[in-house]
């Protein structure tokens, strides 16, 4: 699943605004090198001043078009730099792709499928709906967006799914009732979801409560958002006594590494737990954006995954050495 670092160039072939704040960008890529099946993601090198950052995006594609890579980028009010750069692209521009993989491959062992998308989470779910539909098994999709203007790919999805596409617009007050949705799900139903953290956590806890098979809830998160907005904050590293700032467009991990602090990391998407640091004290709430820590571990507020989780402003002191790993209750 994990791809080694790649050296692939994508050239912008087409740009289209597919919703009021979502832009579709299609790249020409060398045929057959990238995994572009539903659920796949690609990582681009994105220049930021004199630095190169990496930004990962889910593909909209469904694996049937090996020389075209399609992504959808939301224009964030508080851009971390990635989307602002992506929105500045023009046809003919080239980008370096440094990684690729699929952390959410389609599965076919199910009686039926439910696809749940929230906001920009529609990106991977569009290819997923198309791919799953090809199995001939029933596929339902629920797509939650703020309004019709902010929903992307609706006509494409309608074409694939017909009446099995259920659009839920906040503007119509048609909010999703997750327990009600799970009433219609069997032990053999597989649910794929991608959306804001609140939606996914509500689904995960409702899923566990109904004791549905853990393997049948499939989701992906880039941990780009949490329960709080993305704010700058200050960190003092206890071991060195140094205080550093973490700006809106960098992660705690980036800031620690940039300031010469030696910390581990691997997945950089809040899944593996290798970048965990201990929190000694904090003046604001920790915004846990990972999927590694359990609810109990989170509630203790004594650690966070530096690759994605943040402080909601303010200041904290952390230990970056002598980290307690393993099952901590």
């Amino acid at each position, binding site marked *: *699943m994990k791809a080694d670092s790649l050296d692939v160039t994508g050239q912008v072939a087409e740009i289209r605004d597919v919703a009021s704040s979502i832009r579709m960008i299609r790249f020409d890529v060398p*045929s*057959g090198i990238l995994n572009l099946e539903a659920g796949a993601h690609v990582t681009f090198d994105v220049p930021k001043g004199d630095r190169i950052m990496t930004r990962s995006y889910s593909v909209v*594609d*469904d*694996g*049937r*078009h*090996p*020389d*075209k890579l399609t992504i959808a980028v939301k224009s964030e009010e508080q851009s971390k730099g990635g989307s602002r750069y992506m929105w500045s692209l023009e046809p003919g521009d080239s980008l370096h792709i440094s990684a690729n993989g699929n*952390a*959410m*491959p*389609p*599965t*076919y*062992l199910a009686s039926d499928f439910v696809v749940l998308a929230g906001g920009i989470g529609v990106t991977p779910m569009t290819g997923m709906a*198309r*791919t*799953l539909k*090809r*199995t001939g098994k029933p596929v339902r999709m629920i797509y939650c967006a703020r309004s019709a203007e902010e929903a992307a790919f609706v006509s494409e999805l309608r074409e694939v799914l017909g009446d099995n596409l259920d659009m839920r617009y906040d503007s119509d007050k048609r909010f999703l009732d997750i327990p009600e949705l799970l009433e219609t799900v069997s032990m053999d139903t*597989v649910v794929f979801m991608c959306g804001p953290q609140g939606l996914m956590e509500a689904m995960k806890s409702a899923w566990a409560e109904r004791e549905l*098979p*853990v*393997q*049948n809830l*499939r*989701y*992906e*998160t880039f941990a780009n958002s949490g329960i709080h907005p993305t704010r700058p904050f200050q960190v003092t590293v206890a071991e060195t006594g140094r205080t550093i700032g973490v700006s809106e467009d960098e992660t705690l991990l980036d800031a620690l590494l940039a300031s010469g602090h030696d910390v581990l990391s691997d*997945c950089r*998407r809040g*899944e*593996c*737990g290798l970048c965990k640091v201990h929190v000694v004290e904090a003046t604001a709430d920790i915004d846990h954006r990972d*999927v*590694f*820590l*359990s609810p*109990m*571990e989170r509630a203790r507020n004594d650690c966070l995954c530096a690759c994605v989780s943040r402080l909601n402003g303010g200041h904290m002191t952390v230990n970056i050495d002598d980290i307690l*790993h*393993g*099952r*901590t*209750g």
Partner: protein
Amino acid sequence: MAERTYPFNTWYAVAWDYEIAEGRLLPRRICNKPLVFYRKKDGTAVAMDDACWHRLAPLSKGKVVNDNVVCPYHGLVFEPGGRCVHMPSQETINPSACVRTYPLVDRHRLCWVWMGDPALADPNLIPDLHWNDDPEWAGDGTTLHLKANYLLAVDNLMDLTHETFVHQGSIGNDAVAEAPFRTTHGPGTATVTRWILNQEPPAFWGEQLGKPGPVDRWQIIHFTAPSTIALDVGVAPAGTGAPEGDRSQGVNGYITFAITPETETTTHYFWAANRNFDIDNQSRTTIWREGVRKIFAQDEAILESQQQAIEANPDKTFYDLNIDAGGAWARRKVAEMIEAEQATMRRAV
């Protein structure tokens, strides 16, 4: 490395049904991918990549617990859909952790895997080898592990002229190489029909028929791309109407072949020799199986030395003779499958 010689969007036989058993992990490489197979308690067979998501340890060296596979190295547990359901020493499970699984279906005493786009894996596309488990037929077979590219085995079966030279004394005699044959083809299929009329039967067929005198002998090779063959063979006393469709005075066998690329230069060759006469006689079943096994050992020897010669002569190519018409159609059908697969990939969505 030369281009891939096998398509992915097709069913390949990977094992006899009994080889994939409950609670046991069977490793086997198919289309150059190491896979592991096992059977769930409900009898459903499972195929997944034989490499743990975590550190790529072979899952086949682990164990099956409650229908799940436990990695031998750090105890990660994967359910039959390939998703990780247990990780050591942590409260949560990384949602990315999974191994790829493949559609796997039991049919005609064999298990068939689909290595390509799973959405296209329609079990109705599994070739008809019903003679393997039809109650009106009796037979048995086994697997030959062939150290040669799978298409060399297809070539071998599509042109039985070689019987005269490789199998002289058992099923081959001069009459085979002298008799003309017809080839026909359809979408994904090719058929070679050869009638050898009014000739003395070779030793094996003379014994099976148990009647003296010349015979009309038939060899009808039904090929389904990429690599399944049902070989309709038999003899009847000459002039009793077999070429016209009345085989009632003769004896008939259906030898089935499911030929699966293991790598570009090795092959899993599953065969069974079935007959529709004297079907309750287990001794005859054994005699057929052992007789055919000896015949295929002769093919194995020539095909493996052919593969070695191909590798030793990378500057040389193949030439066709008119006897290769059946094999040439088979190879063209395989090439069309590979092309179609690539065209589907290219088609805009």
